[in-house]
């Protein structure tokens, strides 16, 4: 099996973008189904929501928020790369900075509330 050395930032960004997208598309139908319980099966929805109070679930939720943020900002990075006249290195750093800032501020907000 031929392998190509791929340890450069843009390749990692590609992997992360694809992995986060795939994870989100698997999560979404579950998310939609849980929400649809609100119509006629509110008791079931409530018990599922109580289940999400569990710390492990909270960790998983944080993971999902992170994946969404990473996918969104990675996507913005791609749009900038394709449409704006910045160098690719600048854009990668910009995306990392923004994503990092977003993460920090989200954590802060979650703590503060």
């Amino acid at each position, binding site marked *: 099996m031929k392998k190509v050395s791929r340890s450069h930032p843009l390749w990692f960004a590609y992997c992360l973008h694809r992995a986060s*997208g795939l994870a989100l598309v698997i999560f979404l139908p579950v998310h939609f189904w849980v929400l649809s319980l609100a119509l006629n099966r509110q008791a079931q929805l409530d018990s599922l929501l109580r289940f999400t109070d569990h710390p492990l679930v909270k960790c998983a939720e944080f993971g999902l928020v992170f994946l969404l943020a990473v996918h969104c900002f990675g996507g913005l990075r791609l749009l900038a790369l394709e449409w704006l006249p910045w160098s690719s290195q600048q854009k990668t750093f910009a995306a990392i900075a923004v994503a990092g800032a977003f993460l920090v501020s989200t954590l802060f907000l979650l703590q503060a509330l």
Partner: protein
Amino acid sequence: MLNITLYLLQRVSAAMMVPFVLVHLVVMIIAVNGGLTATEILSRTQGSLVWMLFYGGFVIAVSIHAAIGVRVIAYEWFGLNGRWLSVFTWTVGALLLFTGLQAVHAVTATPL
């Protein structure tokens, strides 16, 4: 196997979703404070045209974007091609659209 049309749909749906995602994240963070209950969610969204349009638009955009995204993965990593690739793409899109709009209806429908 992405041509200009699929590329444009992918990029446009992505751009549309940026405000949707940001607002959704903020709403989530506020809503999750102090625990989450069905009543709490519904008190905010039930009977609301604004939320229906917001989440309805979000669901349509994500159905397009995710279907094209998994189309690429199905082709590049699993070698799915030709008619089956199209069937797969449309199925994923339809599934997300249907379950998504059902969820939007569930949380925004006016109580009887």
